[in-house]
């Protein structure tokens, strides 16, 4: 019994350590402040984007507060200007951690405008 308890404890500790190491370490954003606070963004960014996309595509409203292009310009990796590519890239890192399928970038550009133009997003 004692052996089993020790074994369970060891497993639990190992599990905790594993979970801790898996928490994503993401690229630092370029800007100082996000359009909403971090908790709101984590919970609701998909709703903001979904609402905004219809306003822009159908009604032609530009310059909205929430825009996917805006997310990418700020959160892209310093070296390659992308939000996808490795577990530290902003969008991919968190979506992999949360196990949520990310299909925005099957159509949308995942790199900054500068990176698309062949220029480096910003000095590494």
């Amino acid at each position, binding site marked *: 019994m004692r052996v089993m308890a020790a074994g369970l404890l060891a497993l639990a500790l190992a599990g905790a350590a594993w979970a801790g190491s898996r928490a994503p370490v993401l690229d630092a954003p370029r800007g100082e402040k996000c359009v909403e606070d971090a908790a709101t963004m984590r919970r609701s960014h998909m709703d903001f984007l979904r609402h905004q*996309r*219809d*306003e822009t*595509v*159908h*009604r*032609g*409203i*530009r*310059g*909205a507060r929430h825009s996917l*292009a805006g997310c*990418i310009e700020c959160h892209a990796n310093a070296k390659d200007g992308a939000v996808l590519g490795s577990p530290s890239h902003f969008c991919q890192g968190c979506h992999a951690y949360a196990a949520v399928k990310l299909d925005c970038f*099957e*159509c*949308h*550009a995942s790199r*900054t*405008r500068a990176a*698309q133009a062949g220029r480096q997003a910003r000095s590494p």
Partner: protein
Amino acid sequence: MNPIDTSRRAFLGRTAAFAGVALAPGVLLYEFAAAREAGQEASAAVRWGMLVDTTRCASGCTACVDACNAEHGVPKASRPTDAQWIRKVELKDLRTGAVRSAPVMCQHCAEPPCVDVCPTGASFKRADGIVLVDRHTCIGCRYCMMACPYKARSFVHEPTTGQKTDTPRGKGCVESCNLCVHRVDRGEKPACVDACSAAGHRAIVFGDLNDPSSEIALRVRSVATSQLRADLRTDNGVRYQGL
């Protein structure tokens, strides 16, 4: 029964005509001063259109096609199933031998058949006359491709890479010329128009057909232009001169 009061009707007509004239400078200022302000939606008072002067369009020149591909991140079409937003067409009159070259793209119809047949509402016409595909709702059924008399639409068969920020495109959706809607919203002209000017041909004029003082409105008023397949009465926003 009272006779119809024609004097009142005539007065209303005159007033409306006067109001139209008085409004025109304001409308002009609003459209050409700059891009639409952030937060403002596309206006139904505007009807964007293009005029292609086939007498100036050079045979063999593909500046407009190349510029379109670069602007929207569309790879150069090499197979019949590849996406094609704009293509150069050569027309030869066999009796006279006259050859005309012109780009053909989405004609941005006022009565677009692609919108009529779309089962999901993905194919739609924006208030300012630009016909678009909302890829978020497109299910890739390709009804619009069948309905379009101009073969303007393409289906994307394979995964895409190298997309541009302003032109998302992906496998499983239909796409076509969007009149460079992102540039137009910024107050710029479509990429093909600028490329044609840069190549020295100036064969494409872009502007607001509803604004009587715009270059395109002056041109379509003063010279004979035609819409492709005008018999279908789709009232195209793209017009051709010299066909």
